[in-house]
């Protein structure tokens, strides 16, 4: 690796007439799903291009194809007119495409400098690694992006925001022409976000084409020059950011107006307290959290990453231990603090992590659905299998769960249908309070509105729904009241009518 990368063409005029990267007619299929259907994307040097879309729109598939993680089924990728054949992440990097994924792919035990030069350590006499040069070059790279990280620091000890900078420095070390930032702000504080934006603008000034992947409107309006929207694996629009308003962008993303995505059929919430939480603290995260949820109400909890939503969800249902505080369901204390008691009192969790906490992947759909209510089908300890299957079939019909049969292994169902089975698991049991954690994570746009309708219906049937979410539209579209968390504390509770994005974000920052 030469030293040339440190100052090539700095400040030189960027030729924007030739695209840095051109993707044409990209198709990608997975078993049972068309992830990308004839998608085009053109990135210009020196420009920041936002790629937007809901979960499941195809954003990550597209950038994984760029990164060489997936192969494409059809289409071409050209860089400055030359067709690329990307077969592996290594190829992609060699061609000058650097993708900074949300889950950062650095070796946490290595130093920053070691990570930057991972693919090719400069060597000195006799093939030994020239450590001094590595450190010096690393420092020079950070100098160029205008952000300083200690090259000798152990990477794992750095906050995510600085690890991102290490990734960006790696991109420069590889003389990347295209840098992709995948949802880079999801775990950053507002301060860190503005620093990141400065660095991203600097990359563009160096003539690098930046692809900024996000579903957050405000960020895109702040930083992007151009926006491409994907929906259900298809290209919807590519326009200069100036041509968009909030509403037009949302409409492009969800394909309809926001009201129709959240059809409210339930009436006003009742006044009966179904769940009362007082002074709840846990060893690691939660500090003195108190709130009440009423029967027939959706109480939405918002917070940035690390705010403690999932921790609260797991503590409230008795899954994770607490250090102090009380939890009461319909007036009965959750004692002893375990899920066995919780379910008996009628509180259950719809987990955010379906694979490791919800699904029994290799077991059939009907066994997954009946797991929490097996006792109802037992006679002298024996399962009434006919009754069990009939009850499950009932839910499969009512919720239009798409499965070839009740005997299908649940891992073969789509995310939306898996989620419906898990909701059925609780409905078959019968609950007073359901805690739903990121209920639409990893679910197609089409199925999302069905999940929303189901949540609306749960509250309509008199359950108290406590919903943890990081999606602002979901929060505002479904909740009767909004609670906001920041670093393990509850910072605000307001009614839906009082809640604005600004108020919520302010409370989330703390």
């Amino acid at each position, binding site marked *: 690796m030469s030293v040339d990368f440190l100052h090539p063409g700095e400040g030189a005029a960027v030729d924007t007439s030739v695209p840095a990267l051109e993707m044409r007619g990209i198709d990608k299929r997975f078993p049972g799903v068309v992830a990308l259907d004839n998608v085009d994307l053109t990135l210009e040097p020196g420009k920041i291009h936002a790629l937007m879309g809901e979960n499941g729109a195809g954003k990550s598939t597209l950038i994984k194809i760029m990164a060489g993680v997936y192969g494409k089924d059809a289409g071409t990728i050209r860089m400055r007119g030359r067709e690329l054949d990307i077969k592996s992440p290594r190829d992609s990097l060699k061609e000058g495409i650097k993708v900074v994924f949300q889950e950062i792919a650095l070796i946490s035990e290595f130093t920053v400098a070691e990570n930057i030069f991972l693919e090719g350590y400069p060597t000195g006499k006799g093939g030994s690694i020239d450590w001094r040069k590595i450190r010096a070059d690393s420092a020079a790279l950070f100098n160029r992006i205008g952000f300083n990280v200690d090259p000798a620091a152990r990477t794992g000890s750095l906050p995510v925001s600085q690890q991102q900078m290490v990734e960006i420095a790696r991109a420069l070390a590889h003389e990347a022409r295209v840098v992709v930032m995948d949802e880079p702000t999801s775990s950053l504080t507002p301060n860190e976000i503005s620093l990141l934006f400065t660095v991203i603008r600097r990359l563009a000034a160096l003539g690098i084409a930046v692809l900024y992947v996000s579903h957050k409107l405000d960020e895109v309006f702040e930083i992007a020059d151009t926006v491409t929207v994907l929906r259900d694996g298809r290209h919807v629009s590519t326009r200069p950011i100036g041509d968009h308003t909030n509403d037009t962008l949302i409409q492009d993303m969800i394909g309809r107006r926001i009201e129709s995505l959240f059809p409210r059929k339930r009436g006003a919430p009742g006044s009966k307290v179904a769940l009362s939480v007082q002074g709840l603290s846990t060893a690691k995260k939660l500090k003195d959290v108190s709130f009440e949820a009423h029967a027939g109400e959706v109480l939405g909890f918002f917070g940035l990453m690390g705010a403690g939503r999932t921790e609260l969800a797991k503590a409230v249902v008795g899954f994770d231990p607490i250090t102090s505080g009380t939890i009461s369901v319909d007036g009965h204390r959750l004692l002893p603090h375990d899920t066995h008691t919780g379910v008996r009192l009628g509180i259950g969790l719809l987990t955010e992590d379906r694979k490791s906490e919800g699904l029994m992947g*290799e077991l059939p759909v009907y066994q997954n659905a009946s797991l929490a209510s097996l006792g109802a089908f037992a006679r002298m300890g*024996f*399962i009434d299998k006919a009754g069990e299957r009939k009850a499950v079939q009932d839910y499969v019909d009512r919720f239009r769960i798409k499965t070839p049969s009740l005997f299908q292994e649940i891992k073969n169902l789509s995310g939306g249908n898996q989620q419906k089975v898990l909701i059925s698991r609780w409905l078959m049991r019968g609950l007073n309070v359901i805690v739903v954690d990121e209920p639409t994570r990893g679910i197609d746009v089409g199925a999302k509105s069905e999940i929303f309708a189901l949540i609306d219906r749960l509250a309509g049937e008199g359950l108290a729904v406590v919903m943890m979410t990081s999606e602002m539209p979901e929060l505002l579209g479904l909740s009767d009241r909004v609670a906001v968390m920041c670093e393990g504390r509850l910072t605000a509770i307001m009614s839906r009518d009082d809640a604005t994005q600004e108020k919520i974000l302010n409370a989330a920052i703390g």
Partner: protein
Amino acid sequence: MEMSELTQSSAPRRFIGGQLLGSSQLVLGIILAVLCIAISIAAPQFYSEANIIAILRQCALVLIVASGMTMLIITAEVDLSVGASLAFVGCIGMAVLNSTHSLVLGMLAALAFAGGVGLFNGLVVTRLKVNSLIATIGTMMMLQGGVYLFTREAVQNHHRLVSFTDLGAGYIGAIPLPVVIAVAIFAIAAVTLRFTTLGRYLYAVGANERAVRLSGVRSERLKLFAFVVTGLCVGVAGMILASLMNAGQPTAGRGFELTVIAAVILGGTSLLGGRGSLFGTLLGVLVLKVIDNGIIILGWNQDLQMVVPGVVIILATYLDIIRNRANVR
């Protein structure tokens, strides 16, 4: 177009083929049949009533413990201490028989000890969260050493109880008593796994313990149960073995745990938990013991008794992988 039609029409056929091959039990059944026919042709005495009874008797001990072990492995845990416990149980049972002259008290002592070992394993795994492979290796070493603290040599039969001798050598009709006991334990375990809520929960815990716990089921208790049942099975098997040897042998049961686990795995039960059946285990036991018997009857070198089953396990597991791949396609 022609191509796609071709693949489409062949797809269902391949699927049916996959279905037929679909049960690992079928593969195992075929292996068993081929083995029996081949050995019978080479050595007709294989097919004699006496030899068949002998094979069944040898299957009995393994099947008893494998019944419990199948439940345990379905919950994604394993117990490597069963061999060491088997020897210890025989010594303790025999000592209690010698001092009390009561078969009931001897059996109770054996069951209490072996059940206690299972309970200990279960508590270490569920409370201390020690991986069961490591925990039960620890228990195995404690028992292997501990039995010599208890007795330096075999505990001989000083009580001469006829009912104790019958435990290993007796018959009900033409069927050896150990076989009857094994079939009974096997049947209870099979019905439990197949038809009861308890059985369903055992599969569920192996498939995803956290999901089971979130559903309000006490998953630790299910695992504890499976450990204790495995222990109790060892208690029964240990007394039968002591009866057959007419002594409590501290050296007995070496490698027994491997035979048991091999039979369970061979029968298609997944070490990852959540998948498996007792019927498969039965076939697994039969295959291993028919091979054993065949090697003796054919007059081959007896060291092959370890070598051949080793080869069979690798082959059967490989066949299973091929079958799964065919299913995915």
